[in-house]
């Protein structure tokens, strides 16, 4: 099994130099810490930042510079600021190479549910999740393979309200790396050390395929 840090590192390994990347909150945010310093990957934040850098030291906080989670960040040389309509134009216009999101569920057709846990959610909050899932060139999800109660999060059809249809291409969990292939479903690309395909299948709510 991989831990959260290893999951973030595993995602970072697959991001090539030159990509514009938007990272969601949680494990996705940690991905930035695992991109090697010599590999230039440009981070986008939907509140109007390109070239976002890591969190500042406690004595270096700039109250004017926060990320989409409203946490203080820094700006790398070459970074820029712009307004919200431009920022989401970058997303919807297909200029963002990759968005890494967390999720409650991903279905074998690439549907993603990551913004509301029930139809009766008293005060839902969507933020930029739907724009990112529908607009980014690629959507990868990183999340635990199951809920805390052991229920599968990779499923045939999402039971929670959808964020976007058919959006997800790849899933990085604590157990495996899984591609979502149109017409085929979940294809396992890599299994965490010490596990077998059958272990993963037992914790998955849809059929797993392999390339072999």
């Amino acid at each position, binding site marked *: 099994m991989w831990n959260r840090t290893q999951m973030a590192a595993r995602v970072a390994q697959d991001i090539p130099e030159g990509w514009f990347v938007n990272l969601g909150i949680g494990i996705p945010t940690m991905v930035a810490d695992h991109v090697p310093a010599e590999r230039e990957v440009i981070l986008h934040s939907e*509140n109007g930042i390109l070239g976002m850098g890591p969190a500042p030291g406690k004595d270096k906080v700039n109250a*004017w*510079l*926060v990320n989409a989670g409203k946490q203080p960040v820094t700006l790398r040389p070459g970074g820029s600021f712009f*307004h*919200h309509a431009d920022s989401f134009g970058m997303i919807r216009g297909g200029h963002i190479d990759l968005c890494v999101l967390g999720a409650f569920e991903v279905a074998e057709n690439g549907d993603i549910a990551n913004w509301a846990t029930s139809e009766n959610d008293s005060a839902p909050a969507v933020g930029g999740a*739907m724009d990112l899932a*529908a607009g980014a060139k690629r959507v990868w999800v990183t999340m635990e393979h199951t809920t805390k109660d052991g229920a599968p999060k990779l499923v045939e059809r999402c039971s929670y309200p*959808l964020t976007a249809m058919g959006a997800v291409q790849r899933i990085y969990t604590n157990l495996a790396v899984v591609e979502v292939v149109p017409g085929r479903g979940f294809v396992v690309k890599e299994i965490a050390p010490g596990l077998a395909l059958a272990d993963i299948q037992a914790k998955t709510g849809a059929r797993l395929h392999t390339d072999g």
Partner: protein
Amino acid sequence: MINKIVASIAEALQGVKDGATVLMGGFGAVGQPDELIEGLIEQGARDLVVVANNAGAGKVGLAKLMEAGRVRKIICSFPRSAGSTVFEELYRAGRLELEIVPQGTLAERMRAAGAGIAAFWTPTAAGTKLAQGKEVRDFGGRPHVMEYALKGDVALVEAWEGDRWGNLTYRESGRNFNPVMATAADLTVAQVHHLRELGEIAPDHIHTPGIFVNRVVRVHRGHPWS
């Protein structure tokens, strides 16, 4: 002589009517025109429809205005945040209408209003419950949702610098929704940290040209969330 600079918050908010749709800039606390928003309490307008990314936090700004019972409806992308207790209480009590709009669609609806576009088609939210009841059409084999322009009667924005023609600059991530909202209302009021002489802001550096701005008021405030 054109002079959009006014001396007080009260003067800046003159004429805001009951039932007005008020666009409020900011992303969390950054770039949020709290002095203007709180000024609405004294100004007296009621039954307001507020368009903002968040639904206020703590007891300041939008939260204070909501607590004073002035807001009928809020149109936003992310009402829940750390400290959004005033919103939560009013919403649970059924005293506040809520329209959730995806963040990019929210920005684009106001951009459209400011640019004279009545409506547009976006892939965002297609197939989700936020598209329920909306027109859907396929473009290039992909479903798109029709979204209408969202115009304000009033826009309240926060800028870093302003001059008497209403030209504005913003600071770092304090820009966010502010320039978009400035274009999208009949009356745009900017609170600024610094007043500049005409010509002092380099023309190449002006983010919002004064054509979009009606009033500018200087506020004495520190950095956001400080």
